[in-house]
C-alpha cells in the first residue's frame, strides 16, 4: 500500500515535469531545448552502447568515496562522541577544516593524487566524511547515559554496547548526514569528471555539449538525475527499514 502510494506520487511528479518541459520546448522551439520524446528516443538508443559505461564509472566513484568516508568518518565520530579526550584533540581540526569548500581543494588534490580516479574519489570522500563525523559524534552525545545502564550491570563490553546501543542510536542521524552530503557529492563529481577522464556522466554531458549534440547532452542529464534519485531512494529505503522504531 505504502509503496504504491509513493510510486504514484513519484510518477505524478515526473509527469508534471515532462509536461512542463514539453510546453517550454514547444513555445521556445530552439535546438537547445529539444522535445522530451526525442530525448527519450535517443536515450533508449544510446544507453547500453555508450551511456551505461559512463554511469557505471560515476556510480563507482560515488560508492568508493562513500565507503571510504564511512570507514574513516564513523570510527572518528565514534571516538569523538565516546571519549571527551579524543573530542578535545580532534574537534579543533574538524571545525577548522569543515567550512572550507572542498571543491577549492581540487587543484591541490589533483597535484597530489593525480588527475585520475584517486583525486575524484578523494573529493567525494572529503565532502561526505565531515558530515558523517559530526553527525555520529552528536548522535552519540545525545544518547542518555541511562540507556547504557541495563547493559553495564550485565557486564557488557564495548562490542556489545556498540551492537546494542551505539549503532542503532546513531543510524538515523548518520543516514541523514549521508543523504545531505550525497547531493553535494553528486554535483562535485560532475565537476571533477570534466577533468582528466574519458568516463563518467560529467565527461559525457560536457563532451556532448562540446560536440553540440544536444540530444546526447539531455540524455546524459536525464541519466545523472535518475542516478541521484536512485541513490536517494536507496538511502531512504534503508532508513525506513532500519529506523522503524522511531515512527
Amino acid at each position, binding site marked *: 500500500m505504502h509503496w504504491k502510494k509513493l510510486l504514484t506520487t513519484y510518477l505524478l511528479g515526473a509527469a508534471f515535469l515532462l509536461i512542463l518541459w514539453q510546453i517550454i520546448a514547444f513555445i521556445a522551439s530552439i535546438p537547445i531545448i529539444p522535445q522530451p520524446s526525442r530525448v527519450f528516443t535517443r536515450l533508449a538508443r544510446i544507453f547500453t552502447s555508450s551511456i551505461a559505461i559512463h554511469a557505471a564509472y560515476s556510480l563507482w566513484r560515488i560508492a568508493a568515496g562513500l565507503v571510504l568516508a564511512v570507514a574513516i568518518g564513523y570510527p572518528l565520530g565514534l571516538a569523538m562522541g565516546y571519549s571527551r579526550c579524543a573530542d578535545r584533540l580532534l574537534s579543533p581540526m574538524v571545525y577548522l577544516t569543515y567550512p572550507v569548500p572542498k571543491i577549492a581543494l581540487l587543484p591541490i588534490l589533483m597535484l597530489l593524487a593525480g588527475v585520475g580516479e584517486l583525486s575524484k574519489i578523494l573529493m567525494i570522500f572529503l565532502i561526505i566524511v565531515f558530515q558523517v563525523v559530526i553527525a555520529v559524534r552528536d548522535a552519540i552525545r545525545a544518547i542518555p547515559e541511562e*540507556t547504557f*545502564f*541495563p547493559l*553495564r*550491570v*550485565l557486564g557488557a563490553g564495548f562490542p*556489545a554496547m556498540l551492537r*546494542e546501543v551505539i549503532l542503532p542510536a546513531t543510524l538515523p542521524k548518520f543516514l541523514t548526514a549521508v543523504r545531505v552530503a550525497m547531493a553535494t557529492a553528486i554535483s562535485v563529481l560532475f565537476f571533477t569528471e570534466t577533468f582528466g577522464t574519458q568516463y563518467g556522466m560529467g565527461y559525457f554531458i560536457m563532451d556532448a555539449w562540446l560536440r553540440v549534440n544536444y540530444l546526447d547532452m539531455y540524455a546524459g542529464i536525464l541519466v545523472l538525475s535518475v542516478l541521484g534519485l536512485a541513490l536517494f531512494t536507496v538511502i531512504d529505503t534503508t532508513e525506513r527499514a532500519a529506523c522503524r*522504531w*522511531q515512527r
Partner: protein
Amino acid sequence: MQMNSSRRQSLIIQDITVTYSQNEHASFEALHHIRLTVPKGTVCAVLGPSGCGKSTLIKTVAGLLHPASGTVTMDGAPLDPHRVTIGFMPQNYGLLPWRTALSNVLLGPRIRKQDVQAARARAGELFTQLGIAGLEGRFPKELSGGQQQRVALARAFLLAPDLLLMDEPFSALDAITREEMQDVFLTLWREAQTTTVLVTHYVEEALYLGRTIVLMRAGGTIAETIDNPLFGKKSAR
C-alpha cells in the same frame, strides 16, 4: 524459574560514601557511611524523600557509580557483574527504543551469550504470564507505560538474577496501574525469591513490597531499618 538456592546470596553494603564533584574545588556528599545488609531472598525497600540519595545508593550497588569509600559485597566477595547476575530496572524502564519488546526481553541472554533459543521459550511464558502476549513485535514507543513496565519486568525475571535492583520502578504509572504492577511484581518475585533492593518514595509501596524497609533522610544517611510485618499484605496499601 530455575531455583538454585546456593546462588542466592546476601548483600552487604559496608560504609559506603559517595561524593559528586560539582567543580574543581567543591564536592557534594550524596551518601554518608551507609551500612546495610539485605538477607538473601528478601526484598529491601529503600524509602526516603527526593534528593536523599536513594537513587545514588542503588546505582552504587549496581556498580554504575564508584564510591569514594566502602564496599559492596555479596557472600563475601565484591559485587562483580561477571560473577553475579544483576538485574537493574531504572525509573524509565530502561528499554532500548530500537528493539522490539521480545528483543528487549532477550537482551540479557544476548549480552551473557546464553542460549537465546531456550530463553525465547521462557520469554514466551513470561509474556503470557504478564498479560502482554501478542505484543512481542512492538517497539517500546508503541506500548503504554504499564505495558513497558511489564516488558521490563519480563526482562528482569528472565535473567533469573542473583540480585535485582529497582529504581522507583512504578512511580511513572498512574495509581491503578501501579497497584496492579506491584501485584504482578510480587507474584513473579514469590516464584523466584530474588534478593531485591527497591527504591521508592511511596510509603504504601514500601510497606507492601518491602520485607525490610530502610528509611533514608536528607544528607544520605539511614534513619532507621524496619522489619516490616505488613510485607505482601494488601491491607498495607
